[in-house]
């Protein structure tokens, strides 16, 4: 049952990803990505990581896709369809290398599953409390560093855009 559900959803996610990459219209791309993100949220819930599922919806499907759409609107709808300037052989190379990469990862996952079932010491519950305890005790340092990362982004965005108060 769960496997069937996963396979069906995985197909949706995959098709959405392909649609995002291949569609010529930037708005369509962003909407395909939204579908992809939403399916991922269901995956997280299926994997017992409820909190991540919710974050996926709030941050990715909510904020990030909206930002993408904003940017599309800022640049202007008239740009619309984008023509790729890539040569044909770049597509061929990308296809071959991509297939190799997928094969490698697939083999790796198959190997890991066949050798031992306990892939990753997955936490018993991915609920808010488990995440909170991990984040605020063990992963304390990366958590604090994340604030510096957000600060750098904030300062960067504003410094690039706004003239200093005292600048004419």
């Amino acid at each position, binding site marked *: 049952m769960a496997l069937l559900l996963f396979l069906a959803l995985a197909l949706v996610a995959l098709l959405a990803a392909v649609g995002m990459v291949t569609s010529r219209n930037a708005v369509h791309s962003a909407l395909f990505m939204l579908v992809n993100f939403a399916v991922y949220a269901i995956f997280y819930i299926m994997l017992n990581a409820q909190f991540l599922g919710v974050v996926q919806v709030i941050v990715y499907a909510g904020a990030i896709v909206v930002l993408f759409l904003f940017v599309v609107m800022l640049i202007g709808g008239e740009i619309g369809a984008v023509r790729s300037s890539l040569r044909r052989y770049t597509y061929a190379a990308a296809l071959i290398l991509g297939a190799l990469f997928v094969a490698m990862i697939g083999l*790796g996952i198959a190997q890991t599953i066949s050798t031992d079932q306990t892939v990753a010491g997955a936490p018993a519950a991915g609920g808010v409390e488990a995440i909170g305890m991990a984040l605020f*005790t063990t992963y304390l340092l*990366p958590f604090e560093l994340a604030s510096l990362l957000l600060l*750098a982004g904030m*300062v960067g965005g504003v410094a690039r855009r706004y003239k200093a108060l005292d600048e004419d």
Partner: protein
Amino acid sequence: MNLSSLNWNSLLPELVIVATSLIVLITAVVGKVSRVDRIARGHALAVVTLIGLLIAAGLTIMQLSQPASDFMGMVQSDALSHYLNLVILLAAALAVLLAWDYLGRFTYSFSEFYSLLLLAVAGMMFLGKSTELITLFVSLEILSISLYILTGFNRHQLASAEASLKYFLLGAFASGFIVYGAALLYGDTGSTWFSDIAANASGGFLTLAGFALLLVGFAFKIAAVPFHMWTPDAYQGAPTPVTAFMSVGTKAAALVALFRVLQSAVSAPYETWAWALAILSLLTMTVGNVAALRQTSIKRLLAYSSIAQAGYMLIGLVAGTVLGLQAMLFYLFAYAFMNIGAFACASLLESDDWSELQDASMANARGLFSRQPLLATALAIFMFSLAGIPPLAGFFGKLYLFDAAIDAGWLWLALVAVINSVISAYYYMRVVVVMFMEAPDESTRVRLPIPDSAILAIVIAVLGALLLGILAGPSFASLGQAVVAWRF
């Protein structure tokens, strides 16, 4: 869990840098400053930044004699990270001296500049210390994002924005590789700690793919061929102090982080990765040097040269021995002096017109010796050192690296590196010939008067390049003792 149980001491230098960064940032919006005082305030902020860097350096030096310690297993303060910190702080201090006068000519956003510079420094210091994948990634992003913005800091110039955008897009792509690699390793072993990964890795395709992706991400950050495409444009378009800083700091931190990843997280025998690194090093040296031959801009020439230099430094990782690591650290110090020194001289050859591309073209240096003999001599010293001519620091750095390679059984790589040094001598010497042999004409341009801060930076760099060369033996030995104390 309480605060006093954490080993705060091991993070003191980083905390000082972060605190300085916050203080510098807040001054941007506190109080009004009249037009006349803006430049003076910029200088005051530079002084605050320098003081922060000096305190951090002092704390690092005090920690040198202490045994290695960790902070909840997330970061490791050991000899490796202490020496790396010194390289980064040195590079940052020299960059601040360069920016002292340079910055005021195109922006008044001094607070933002120094604050982001310090954030980048903090990111690099954390990156070099991290022993856990999430910490590693977050610190890598702190330094990357700060540098993307610093690269595009010159708003009057389109090339700067273009450089920033290219660096950002390709850099974000590379970060994606690192996250994916980290995710695969976590899937393989169930832990993000290097030590756990080393213990539990299956050694199958998943491990292989995980490490390969991490390697690609780091190769991008150190500008190794074939992941170097962004480098010439980003280095040329960025304000010169930023170029000088990131060409040294990012490489140093990423090399040390890569070393930690491969050494302590590797389950396959090191030789497997040594081969990948050796090919990377071979390509990087050769492509960098050959491409540099045809450059007409000194800044772009130095960008290609810094790609080639990354190839030399990778040799230390290929060897993977105490000697290799020691040689790499020594080379990083030498590189910090000579490369930033070269960029400092280049920044003085740039034109004053901020609307055109900031380009220290080779023509600007024509006959420089007869106009500014001291400046020409200094630039010549940096060029000789980069080319690896005795008795300068660059020569001994290369000597130790090649020696480490031969010692570890990589004779062919050492030979390729020697051939590359010969090729590189051509374009380094070309700069010297243009300065000394050719007659000056109206295209010769130097920014006059040369600012005191730039003179100070150049003098420090010259002294460093000379002293590190003359005292190469003892300084190399003292690096060795510290490194041996690591974990071989």
